[in-house]
């Protein structure tokens, strides 16, 4: 019923609009086209001023509404750099934006039709054109210079001693792998994968795999102020590791290994205080269309102190031990909550 009413309402609005539109043509004919056109042209010229004011007021209001909803301060070294660069670009583009929009609306208002004046024939000026080719060129050079400096820093090789954590995407969740006590991630190959006891396809002939820890829900635990290198891959289609709070992201492409490193600078607990949000978590969002469950492909990052991290690590059992070592009672592959598992001796 309400649907029908809505359709009727829309139809009614259209009929009214049409009648108004027709009558405006009629009024024009009665008043004389020229006088009518002149008056309308004047109103429209003033509408340009109104639009300009509304435009900037709207932008201001939008800004006021949005700012409290934005992501908190960057939680990584690169992120701070990013925020600075964003600010510089915003200032450069902001100046051009305000200037050109004001000129556009102001000129439109100011130079509205006033009778049949002789047009101002101004078709060319080399000086002016050179000026506004050069100014953008200089502005661009500055932006490129700042940008490339930041870009080459963040894409450089990870510093020595960085933690290495692998994160693999699949439809529709993340799986993370820690190198274990030997500090090295073992080899894996897609033909070894099976969903029962080898979800990443680890190669059991490679001894380095024996102590690797796998977290099937993709949770990643990082240490504050310790650089981390993410080794990124995918089991099936292209995914993307989106790290909003650290201001980075990188695709996960099947058959290709991509890398990304950064240094987290704020722990999850500290961020809860900064944001005043008890439920705050660092989230990994999948940022590349990967199928019907794309929107639900979420994992959590926990940034903690070294002591907390060590305590957590001490409780972990290697994936091999969980699934293949006959001595382990956890042959049913207990999943995420490793705190209940039998602790392994990790040296």
């Amino acid at each position, binding site marked *: 019923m309400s649907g029908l009413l809505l359709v009727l309402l829309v139809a009614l609005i259209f009929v009214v609009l049409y009648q108004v539109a027709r009558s405006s043509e009629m009024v024009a004919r009665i008043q004389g086209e020229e006088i009518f056109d002149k008056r309308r042209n004047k109103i429209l010229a003033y509408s340009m001023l109104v639009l300009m004011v509304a435009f900037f007021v709207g932008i201001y209001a939008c800004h006021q509404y949005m700012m409290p909803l934005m992501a908190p301060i960057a939680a990584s070294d690169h992120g701070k750099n990013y925020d600075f660069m964003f600010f510089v670009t915003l200032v450069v583009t902001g100046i051009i*934006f305000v200037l050109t929009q004001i000129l556009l609306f102001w000129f439109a208002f100011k130079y509205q039709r006033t009778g049949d004046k002789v047009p101002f024939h101004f078709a060319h000026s080399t000086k002016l054109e050179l000026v506004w080719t050069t100014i953008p060129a200089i502005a*661009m050079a500055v932006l490129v210079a700042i940008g490339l400096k*930041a870009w080459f820093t963040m894409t450089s090789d990870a510093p020595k001693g960085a933690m290495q954590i692998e994160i693999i995407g699949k439809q529709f969740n993340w799986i993370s792998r820690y190198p274990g006590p030997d500090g090295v991630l073992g080899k894996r190959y897609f033909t070894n994968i099976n969903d029962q006891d080898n979800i990443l396809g680890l190669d059991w002939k490679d001894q380095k795999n024996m102590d690797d820890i796998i977290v099937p829900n993709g949770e990643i635990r990082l240490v504050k102020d310790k650089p981390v290198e993410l080794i990124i891959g995918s089991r099936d289609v292209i995914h993307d590791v989106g790290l909003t709070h650290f201001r*980075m992201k990188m695709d996960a492409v099947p058959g290709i290994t991509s890398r990304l490193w950064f240094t987290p600078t704020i722990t999850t607990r500290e961020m809860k205080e900064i944001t005043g949000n008890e439920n705050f978590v660092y989230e990994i969002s999948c940022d590349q269309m990967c199928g019907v469950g794309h929107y639900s492909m979420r994992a959590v990052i926990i940034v903690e102190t070294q002591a907390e991290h060590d305590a957590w690590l001490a409780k972990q059992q290697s994936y091999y031990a969980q699934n293949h070592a006959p001595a382990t009672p956890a042959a049913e592959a207990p999943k995420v909550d490793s705190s209940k598992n039998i602790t392994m001796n990790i040296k």
Partner: protein
Amino acid sequence: MGNCRRLDVGLFRLQLGFPEQTFSVLTKFLGEWARGGKMDPEMYYGLVTIHGTVLVFFVLTGGLSGTFSNFLIPLQIGARDMASPFLNMLSFWFFAIASVVMFSSLFITTGPASGGCTSYPPLSAMKEASMGTGLGMDLWLASMALFVVSSLLGGLNYIVTVLNMRTKGMSMTRMPLTIWAFLFTAVLGVLSFPVLLSAAVLLLFDRHAGTSFYLSEIFIAGKALPNVGGSAILYQHLFWFLGHPEVYIIMLPAMGMASEILSTHSRKPIFGYFAMILSLIGITVLAFLVWAHHMFVTGMSPFLGGIFVLLTLLIAIPSAVKVFNWLTTIWKGNIRFTPAMMFALGFVSLFISGGLTGLFLGNSALDIHLHDTYFVIAHFHIVMGISAFFGMFAGIYHWFPKMYGRFMNNTLGYVHFFITFIGAYVIFWPMHYEGVAGMPRRYYDYSNWESFKQFADLNQMISVAAIIVFFAQLIFVFNYFVSVWKGRKVTDPNPWKANSLEWTTPILPGHGNWDGPIPEVHRWAYDYKDNGEGGDFIPQNVPLREGEADDHH
């Protein structure tokens, strides 16, 4: 018209704005795909994919370059018809078949292609990866192949016509900027569309012939595929080698028409005619050298990324020159606010807004955060979506009298303009903020995300605005069709007092455009100046006065 096709926006915006609620109207439109009034995610992604594909290729490419090139090139250069009317017809029918194939994919059981309008493999290559990757994807590829053929046939015809069929006196540097824009649009299309075709053919091989162009080391649906050695990134290179020029295929005609309309209704010559042509050339060349800025986060070589940053930001220079030239064109003008002029002014405003955000995305160090967020959605919808639409609307309002010998209703035109202009900013401006907060695109629902769920109210507001703007487009459609039969009749063959040749034909040009001989051209297209008899314009076919030189440069 493409406006009817924006219905899909209304449908998927309902999901984005009101994820918790159900709508019986969805069940009416989508049937099984929206049981209980809630849209299936599979259908959501299908609609998003078809929305992108249809609007970019079928509406904006077909509507701007396809329609206006065929309409304006012969009229403005003084030709009786296109160089090959037969190619023209073939191009039209290939386009029609492509549209039917694309549209039909909405009605099959497994649904339309649903991997996003970029259709990246492996998602688009394996049936196991998504339901839409079945028959829907095959139809998508077939339709795109047909579209490429249509586009190539059309493009070749435009180039040949512009180069060979100009009337006596119409030197290249006397052509209106619309024609320059159509020429470079066609060049872009002819050189880049074949690459999309090759991408589509390789993808078809991967799908049905067991090849591994794009596939490598994949484990899906419980088994490891035999494909090794391919590269999923290869597709992205091929796709964006068309994909980026495609943006300019859409923008250039809008720029050309806006130039023409701004000049005519300001009663002033276009400022910096040669700078405009040079910037068109600059954009055309650079358009081929920036494609990998869509791929900064694929893990490609950072050095290569750096080169693409440099080349991408270079394109801002010709774009800035164009904006400043448009501003100078209306400066000290004598502006008539016809609906076409309103839309042309709106075009400039939107082009500035959308163009500037490109400086964020083109810079890889910023893109590494903004990539695939709503910032991108806001950027490209404003600059190549709405801004291009404004160029198209301006063109339609301006040349409608030439098409049908009648005017469109002005009042409805102004209503259409104000709702669309304000609505466009209300819809897309806040999306920049969502993107800066990291909100990813192509999500069906954000309510489970601690980082993004605070935007629920905003998304709802955007949905309401988008639906209102959709209904405002019906005003345009209504105005268009009513005016074709009932509009005020044109009595003056040159109603806008413009200079270009199309206004020297009879009000409704018949076959061959001019009744008598084709007019000869004596001056450039923007001679708005004192004609010595109280007028403020001198059409191109008026001979130079004694002692007068064609001295626009």
